[in-house]
């Protein structure tokens, strides 16, 4: 498997040795380049995701989706982005100006922050702390603050209701999300994202195979909770357009709204990416212990594996979103506290037992 760290090291050497730059400049240049790469990937993925959502949703609904702009509608999203960029940004009268402007940035910061943790390839994890996965959940919580502030600062009763709903929901679902991640951490024995993926290389080593029953359950719970965390699907009651028009971003126009839109889709990607990383092995190719097959699989670059798995999970979440009706706020909390929370605790215990007695599924 191609190791991206070779490229990274070569570039580092290029700057340090060949160009003879000092530590400060090397790190500065590298940081800027990586930052640019993240933002570029972020924007591109958002466009791909929005286009995918529109097409997938259309196909579920017996429509064909956008077909006019570009071949098969491919340029539709670009046109939308352009429209959003040139739109006037207006401020609601009596809105809390500072918070009103701040809120979209908080949301986008949380989204970009979590986005940077995704392992794209072997050696291509951008942020790779030893408490990586833990930090992801921490950063993703900033998004809640953004939504809450947006609702409050908009000076709109619908937005306030929506903000309360959003906050309650996201704080609750973070628990199951965290617990599912912890059960994965128990199995892999590390919180570092590269470590988690590393632990899933090898035949039948994806966590969902390795941890069999508890891992499958954890994957499902993770998807449900992640969906709620991304404010989507049956859990989109924060923006519930039939009740609260557009919820917390009712009063935003132009790029303010654009940021929420971006963040929503990228949160979907991040949640799917995390699910793919933690349970489906990230960039790790599928290996079944037969050498020929494994070699072929290993030739496929890790980034393709990662994107493939992530988009698979994205499709699952879209499928769910475009099938089910929305829940009510008390039912969402019921689902979390009466069903998902106990289940994730049971998963945690099960997983611990499995690991302690070495009942995990491994071919070595």
């Amino acid at each position, binding site marked *: 498997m191609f190791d991206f760290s070779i490229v990274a090291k070569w570039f580092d050497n290029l700057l340090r040795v060949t160009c003879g730059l000092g530590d400060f400049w090397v790190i500065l240049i590298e940081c800027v380049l990586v930052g640019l790469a993240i933002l570029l990937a972020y924007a591109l993925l958002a466009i791909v995701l929005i286009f995918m959502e529109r097409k997938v*949703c259309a196909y*579920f*609904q*017996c*429509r064909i989706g956008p077909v006019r702009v570009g071949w098969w509608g491919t340029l539709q999203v670009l046109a939308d982005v352009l429209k959003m960029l040139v739109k006037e940004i207006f401020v609601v009268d009596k809105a809390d100006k500072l918070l009103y402007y701040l809120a979209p940035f908080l949301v986008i910061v949380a989204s970009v922050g979590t986005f940077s943790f995704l392992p794209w390839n072997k050696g291509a994890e951008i942020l790779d702390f030893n408490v990586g996965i833990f930090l992801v959940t921490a950063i993703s919580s900033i998004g809640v603050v953004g939504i809450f502030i947006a609702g409050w600062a908009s000076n709109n*009763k*619908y937005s306030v*209701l929506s903000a309360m709903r959003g906050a309650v929901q996201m704080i609750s679902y973070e628990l199951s999300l965290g617990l599912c991640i912890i059960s994965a951490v128990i199995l892999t024995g590390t919180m570092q994202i590269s470590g988690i993926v590393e632990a899933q290389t090898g035949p039948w080593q994806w966590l969902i195979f390795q941890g069999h029953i508890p891992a499958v359950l954890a994957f499902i719970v993770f998807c449900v909770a992640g969906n709620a965390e991304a404010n989507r699907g*049956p859990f*989109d*009651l924060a923006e*519930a*357009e*039939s*009740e609260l*028009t557009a919820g917390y971003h009712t009063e935003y126009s132009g790029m303010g709204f654009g940021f929420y839109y971006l963040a929503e889709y990228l949160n979907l990607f991040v949640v799917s990416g995390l699910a793919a990383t933690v349970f489906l092995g990230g960039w790790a190719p599928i290996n079944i212990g037969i050498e020929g097959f494994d070699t072929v699989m290993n030739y496929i670059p890790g980034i393709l594996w990662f994107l493939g798995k992530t988009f698979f999970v994205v499709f699952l979440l879209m499928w769910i979103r*475009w*099938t*089910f*009706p*929305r*829940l*009510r*706020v*008390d*039912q969402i909390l019921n689902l979390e506290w009466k069903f998902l929370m106990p289940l994730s605790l049971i998963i945690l215990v099960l997983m611990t037992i499995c690991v302690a007695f070495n009942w995990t599924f491994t071919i070595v």
Partner: protein
Amino acid sequence: MRRLFLRNDFSGYPLRKDFNMDPERNMYSTEDDIEIDTTTEWYLTDSGDLKSVSHSLFTDDDFVVNIGPQHPSTHGVLRLQTILDGETVKHIYPHLGYIHRGIEKLCENFTYPQTLALTDRMNYLSAMMHRHALVGVIEEGMGIELSDRIMYIRTIMDELQRIDNHLLYTACCAQDLGALTAFLYGMRDREHVLNVMEETTGGRLIQNYYRIGGLQADIDPNFVSNVKQLCKYLRPMVQEYLDVFGDNVITHKRFEGIGTMNEADCINYGVTGPAGRASGWKNDVRKYHPYAVYDKVDFEEITLTHGDSMDRYYCHIQEIYQSLNIIEQLIDNIPTGEFYLKQKPIIKVPEGQWYFSVEGASGEFGVYLDSRGDKSAYRMKFRPMGLTLVGAMDKMLRGQKIADLVTTGAALDFVIPDIDR
């Protein structure tokens, strides 16, 4: 006491015959309509004096949210002034009249055929039934005996229109609950119903098919085969709505026990149609005051017991099947005969009062006609289907969540132009 349809600053009572209709005196005001937060109650003292007392609609501590006039789930321009306690509804004051067109007043100045043009624009999802009631009352007044063919076709068309309404209803229920996919399935199949009707009537929303003394045109040559094919196509599709939405556990959780109204209250509030039948009130006009050929067909009146939104939904679903049954019984047996009985160029109804009601898609729709022998009505009164439903919303929703307001509104099945007239 406040004005139901007109602005608060409107003076005079337009339906009174001494109302000055001079356009100069009835210019539309561009001033703000100052809304008063109080309501006046009138009562007689023991000594016979008329006294009034003013009640405040809400206190300073109440969180008042205006659902509408522009709101995605009020299905039109209805404004529900909702008083909330957190997410819980404390009180609802419906404000109507945002698309009040004064149809009843217009009818007094139009000739009888001209009034026909207006009924389709009330509840456009029951356009056929509305027109049926209006031509029904005029024909009753004039004493026209219709041919069997006319009555058969009218019955089939009414039922097609009912299916159209119920498909849109089930679709909109899904949409208000956020299941956009189920919504589009309903809309897709409604398209087929509309296609069938359009081939014959030439209209999709505004049908303009019935006229005094018969029908606008004969059914088109393919009508019978198209309808048969439609019935065959629709039956499995209704199950699909149930699969994707109606039987879904989330839908059940959202609908069950929401907006409940028991039979006695339904009668008190005049909640007719599927909404009332869901609580067990047998109120189907087709059964109890049969018109057209409803007395000759065999169909079941759907009544359920709970009176909540779920039963209202199921009531609609089962009525689709019943309508299909009715159509299938009639479609092969349309008798030959006249589709239109020639009337005099100027239609006059003899002096008298008549009332004719039909079973609209979401309740009883009645037309009261007071004729003084002229070529236009002295008074034409419509009993809208949705007004009583909206009136009952406050009673249904007290103590429930704001999200339930949306679901109850969806499950009640009202259409605003019908309420506002």
